[in-house]
């Protein structure tokens, strides 16, 4: 799986796709959980508990122990996303998967400049975690083109950006390396 092989300490990979690459991320999460501890920060209700449990079961009978190593925290507003990242401790080598990071930033109740400011704080925290851990972030295309700048902001410091499906409406981003 491309995502898995790209995960290295210090690397930041991004998957940009419809539904924030839900199935691919679930597969990645289940594989990582079988191997060791993993932390998932879910920013857009993209974590499917039973789907991941089922995928783990297909890899091992020891579902329970894998499930106990898989940590999840959910954010329902962009302020909560900031909070989550600010108090996530950097555990060396443990991978961090941030699902649909921007979902709560697309909310039209949040002003664009405020979204930008909060996202910057998030990205700073991600840089902190990146020092000692591999990071994968999934993104869904924005509902409104005015928020595309947020996607660019996130991708700016990425090592690799995977677009797993191209949505006709989504703007072509110039950042793919």
């Amino acid at each position, binding site marked *: 799986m491309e995502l898995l092989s790209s995960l290295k300490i210090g690397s930041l990979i991004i998957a940009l796709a419809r539904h924030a690459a839900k199935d691919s991320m679930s597969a990645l999460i289940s594989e990582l959980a079988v191997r060791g501890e993993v932390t998932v920060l879910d920013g857009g*209700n993209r*974590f499917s*508990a*039973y789907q991941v449990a089922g995928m783990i*079961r297909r890899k091992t009978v020891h579902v329970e122990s894998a499930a106990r190593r898989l940590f999840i925290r*959910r954010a*329902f507003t962009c302020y909560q996303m900031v909070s989550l990242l600010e108090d996530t401790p950097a555990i060396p080598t443990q991978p961090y998967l941030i699902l649909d990071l921007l979902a709560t930033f697309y909310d039209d109740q949040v002003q664009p400049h405020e979204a930008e400011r909060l996202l910057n704080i998030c990205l700073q925290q991600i840089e902190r975690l990146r020092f000692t851990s591999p990071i994968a972030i999934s993104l869904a295309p924005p509902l409104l083109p005015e928020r595309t700048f947020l996607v660019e902001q996130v991708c700016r410091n990425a090592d690799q950006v995977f677009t797993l499906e191209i949505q006709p409406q989504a703007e072509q981003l110039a950042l793919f390396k």
Partner: protein
Amino acid sequence: MIIMGRTVITITQQLTETESMLAPFRRALRRSDQYIFDGIFAAARRHITAIGQNESLLPFESALLAIMLEQAKDIAALQHEIEQIKQRNG
């Protein structure tokens, strides 16, 4: 008002997803068998609460128990009927 949480799908939804994953299996069955097949899932749906209470990572395993429970009930009912018939016929 968006309520936080409730991101894990319900048992009912999970059963529906499992059913749709089994759609190719079902399709290849004869129509009469399809009806019985649907009945198996209906049996599971009569015990959604118990399946949920188990809080299992793999709810279908608990669903199978519910299905077996319903079958056991059917068998018990049939045995009861047989007894009654035997008694009536002396």
